[in-house]
């Protein structure tokens, strides 16, 4: 019996490893096919402006070893952008959650100011650049543009989640004498945690999408967006691709980090017997 159970377990483990192996295999296959198609396209196009896989690899090596033509290393570029994104996103997160909750609880306020807020949501952050240049300077410009990109997803998802909180759960606190504050702390915030995190994930992604726009007007010569813009002036597309890929990878890692946090926090949703 014991032996039988063990073989079954080993079999199951085998299947698990099999699935993992398949996943890795297909990912590698996808990358290889992609690179091949890219190479073919570049050869047919025969233009020095079209980036090639080999050219990008060379650019990576060069940028990592020597830094860019002004001497900034890749680490400095990535760090500068991360600081800007997290600063803008951080403010957006705090404001999005607190304003989302308070306006969700007092919808009359939101209804009153909706006429201004709603249209603003649809103005692309890049359209704010001239205004940001006029009104702001230095670091606040980065923060403002990134804030614009990430505030609304967080705010709207928190705001719209409040009316969906189960009234019975609120009554549980109320019926045993809990205050409004206790209801907010013990029922409303835990109830809307999934929406807060979903908004956070979208907001964080959107803030990375705004980094190039923000660094257009920030003034300093460091940052991943700046790297792209610098090499755009020189029409050196291989280096541009490097900047783009690094932004993509960091954005992806941020998203995965929030997903991991979600899985940790919402264990109770997953375990069922």
């Amino acid at each position, binding site marked *: 019996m014991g032996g039988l159970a063990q073989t079954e377990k080993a079999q199951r483990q085998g299947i698990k490893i099999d699935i993992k192996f398949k996943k890795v295999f297909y990912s590698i296959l996808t990358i290889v096919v992609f690179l091949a198609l890219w190479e073919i396209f570049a050869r047919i196009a025969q233009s020095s402006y079209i980036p090639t896989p080999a050219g990008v690899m060379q650019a990576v090596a060069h940028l990592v070893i020597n830094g860019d033509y002004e001497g900034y290393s890749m680490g400095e570029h990535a760090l500068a952008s991360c600081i800007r994104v997290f600063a803008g996103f951080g403010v957006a997160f705090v404001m999005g959650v607190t304003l989302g909750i308070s306006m969700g609880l007092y919808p009359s306020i939101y209804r009153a100011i909706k006429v201004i807020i709603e249209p603003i949501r649809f103005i692309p952050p890049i359209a704010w650049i001239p205004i940001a240049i006029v009104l702001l300077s230095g670091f606040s410009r980065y923060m403002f543009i990134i804030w614009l990109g990430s505030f609304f997803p967080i705010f709207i998802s928190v705001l719209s989640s409040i009316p969906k909180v189960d009234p019975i759960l609120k009554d*549980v606190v*109320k*019926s*045993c*004498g809990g205050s409004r504050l206790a209801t907010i702390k013990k029922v409303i915030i835990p109830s809307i945690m999934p929406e807060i995190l979903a908004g956070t994930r979208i907001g964080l992604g959107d803030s990375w999408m705004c980094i190039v726009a923000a660094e257009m007007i920030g003034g300093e010569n460091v940052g991943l967006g700046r790297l792209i813009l610098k090499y755009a002036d020189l029409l050196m597309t291989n280096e541009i691709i490097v900047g783009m890929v690094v932004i993509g990878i960091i954005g992806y890692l941020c998203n995965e980090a929030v997903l991991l946090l979600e899985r940790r926090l919402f264990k109770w949703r997953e375990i069922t017997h």
Partner: protein
Amino acid sequence: MVKAEPKVYFDVTHSYGGFMALEHIKFNIYENELLCIVGPSGSGKTTIANIMAGLLEPTNGFARLGKDSVDPRKHNISYVFQARSCLPWRTVKENVRIVLEIKGITGPEADKRIADVLQIVGLTGFENYYPNQISGGMKQRVAIARAFCVGSDLLVLDEPFGSLDAQTRYLMQGEVLKVWEKMKRTVIFFTNNIEEAVFLADRLLVLSSSPAKIIKEIDVNLLRPRSLTDPEFLDLRKTVSNLSELSQDV
């Protein structure tokens, strides 16, 4: 029975907008009494329960505990809701603890009370389970444990077993009686099940369908523990059935 001053006074007419839900519902509850209100679905039982617990302001009339209007901030009210009231992100233990947190009871005292009350409702061993890991009946027991973990001036149970199967329901009725006999509380119990009402009540009020009116008040003088097959029990059940517009479920 020698009846002292009532503990709870209820005299309410309530409407939602133009819809009349309760039409002059008037009754009292005495200390340590188990009052059942039996009425068909949609007759306004939950409305009475919510007003009784101070969650809903009546459009007309009052619900008083002693001299004061019912106020959950001032009185200790325990409310067992009809619907699922477990917080899904808290374990069984933590779901009971929420009441103690609000009442400001913490530390070893809180732990002891939780352990005691979970023992009473038969959930020992399930302390660290999440609501989605346990059955509907167990969830309802969590709600009952919550109601019994603090002393209360009034215990309101709104169709607490409505969603349970017949067997679990029967077991839970026994549990509630046991707890009630052990801890002596003033209880108001709402149900649409006549058998349940006759089985549990010291006194019962039969409600009409909407708008709710009290059709009859009956003192249930059957000895406890009651038997569902006792001729006297069956007689009384029949009387109530004939009174109400409910279909008699066997």
